[in-house]
């Protein structure tokens, strides 16, 4: 692998992150209302106190110095203190990361696997009834707003069938006999949001996979492989798949990075205590430091995921790998 290219991608990633930081910094300075008023909320602030707060937060400095201070604090892991929770933003986020990662991770894996299978089968049977069926299903799922899907699931499983818990991640405040029991409890709570997310994501994967496979199948090297006498399965597995997976890598990476954004709808509908609902609450309650923190985290996650996908691409696609500068 070419170190230079990776270094270049890394520089790009950092440039993007710099944009993100800049954006983040300014965005939260144009949000309505005075940031000082937010900081002093609840207390009865005198003008001197306000001035003090300004000074304390460096708000009396010119913007570039403020930005510098912001960067300095950031590099020390200091994202400020949440207004709502009155705890360091990093701690608040830390507590919420795992549920989101678990939920999205599992849903992603299911969606990727099912989506890829759907896509391949659909492409292979292009024009047949099976393709029509799979493609319509994928398109339908793709078109469905995630939250609405969630509402439907609640309606079916919680209101009519009454078989699954409706919200949250665990039965709250209970002790379990062992970890296995606790895990079971979490799994039961996870089923609906996970189905919802999985269904919501299958469509995109399936559709993308289908068109890339169709693309790849029309390449000459596929005809060559067939001419060599290989079975359809082998041609698909050995020749079509590695090439078709390349565009999928990027898609998967971006989606993985979208963890926070993607979770907002599902976590809101199912009250899943993850980053998505945290972000929603931070927004509704104007908890700027927290909002900023989650926003920063989620964008950095995407940039990072993209960077990883580039690296992966380098490793998987020999053309990119040795296309030296």
């Amino acid at each position, binding site marked *: 692998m070419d170190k230079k290219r990776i270094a270049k991608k890394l520089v*790009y990633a950092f*440039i*993007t992150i710099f*944009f*993100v930081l800049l*954006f983040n910094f300014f*965005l939260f300075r*144009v*949000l*309505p209302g005075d940031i000082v008023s937010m900081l002093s909320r609840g207390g009865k602030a005198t003008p001197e106190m306000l001035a003090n707060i300004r000074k304390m937060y460096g708000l009396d400095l010119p913007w570039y110095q403020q930005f510098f201070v912001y960067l300095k604090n950031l590099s020390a892991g200091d994202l400020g203190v949440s207004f709502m929770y009155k705890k360091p933003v990093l701690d608040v986020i830390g507590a919420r990361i795992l549920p989101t990662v678990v939920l999205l991770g599992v849903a992603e894996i299911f969606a990727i696997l099912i989506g890829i299978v759907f896509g391949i089968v659909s492409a292979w049977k292009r024009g047949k009834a099976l393709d029509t069926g799979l493609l319509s299903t994928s*398109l*339908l799922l*793709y*078109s*469905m*707003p*995630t*939250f*609405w899907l969630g*509402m*439907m699931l*609640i*309606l079916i499983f*919680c*209101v009519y069938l009454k078989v699954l818990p409706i919200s949250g991640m665990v039965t709250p405040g209970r002790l379990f006999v062992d970890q296995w029991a606790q895990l079971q409890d979490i799994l039961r709570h996870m089923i609906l949001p996970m189905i919802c997310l999985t269904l919501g994501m299958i469509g995109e994967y399936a*559709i993308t996979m289908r*068109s890339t496979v*169709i*693309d790849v199948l*029309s390449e000459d090297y596929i005809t060559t492989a067939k001419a060599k006498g290989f079975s359809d399965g082998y041609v698909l597995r050995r020749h079509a798949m590695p090439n078709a997976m390349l565009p999928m890598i990027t898609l998967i990476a*971006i989606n993985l*990075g*979208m963890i*926070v*954004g*993607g979770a*907002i*709808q599902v976590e*809101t*509908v199912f009250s899943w205590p993850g980053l998505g609902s945290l*972000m*929603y609450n931070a*927004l*509704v309650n104007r908890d700027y430091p927290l*909002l900023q923190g*989650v*926003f920063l985290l*989620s*964008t950095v996650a*995407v*940039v990072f995921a*993209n960077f990883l996908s580039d690296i992966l691409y380098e490793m998987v696609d020999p053309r990119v790998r040795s296309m030296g500068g």
Partner: protein
Amino acid sequence: MAVNKTKANLRRRRMREFLDQVKANKMALTGTIVLAFFVLTAIIGPFFFPFDVMEFGNVEDILQPPGPGHILGTDDMGRDVLGYLIAGSRVSLLVGALATLLCMVIGTIIGIVAGYSGKAVDNILMRITDFFLVIPWLPLMMVLAAILGTSIWNIILVIGVTSWAGTARVVRAQTLSVRERQFVERTVSIGAGSGHIMLYHILPNVFPLVFASTILVAAAAITSETTLSFLGMGDPAHASWGMMLHYAFETGATSTGAWWYFLPPGICVVAVVLAFTLMGYAFDEILNPKLKER
């Protein structure tokens, strides 16, 4: 020769060819019909089912199931769901259309300029595009909507401003390939400037792709409007499907089993988004020679 080869005639013939392809393509046909139905409903529907979000029924009208008088029942404010739905289609489609237009204009300009200029301009524009592509759209939209306040114009603005990056990418890629085509070189060789080339050569050639990708953006725009409204960032002064779903969810229509309140708007959203998606994929297939079977 007797054949009339006027411009208009030829254009009509091309259009007919395109329509023939659309007709032959079941996906495109379905999408077009469904969309046409909704557009028509949005235009003429309100004349038959006049509706005002601010006009409420009486207490006994609240959440009445479908029946005579109210074909689709009533909502939690005693309003006719069908009328609501029709009025909502206007806003939803309008937001979708305008946001898409905005996104198309921004995306096309940035994509063409970046792709054609190359070098530093390309690099800077693409970093910006990357940024918008990378930034999680829903949080960004929510934050922007919070800054700007809730009105359909702001929603349009927010969706437009946050969703152009994909289009810009597609346009840039296409521009890069068009730029390498010899007709561009030929035009350079007769001394044409960049503006001329971008406008007369690149734009018409990237347009079909822009068209196909924008249709998909339209689908996304409608989903975005619905989602934002659902999450409470919608415009309360206008009826939209997203707002209907918002109120339905807030008032617990799901759990009380008032299916007539949240099923129809949901189905409408799915139908329209699906229609756009179908058309997008079908047009992509029609217009993108790479996907054509050999």
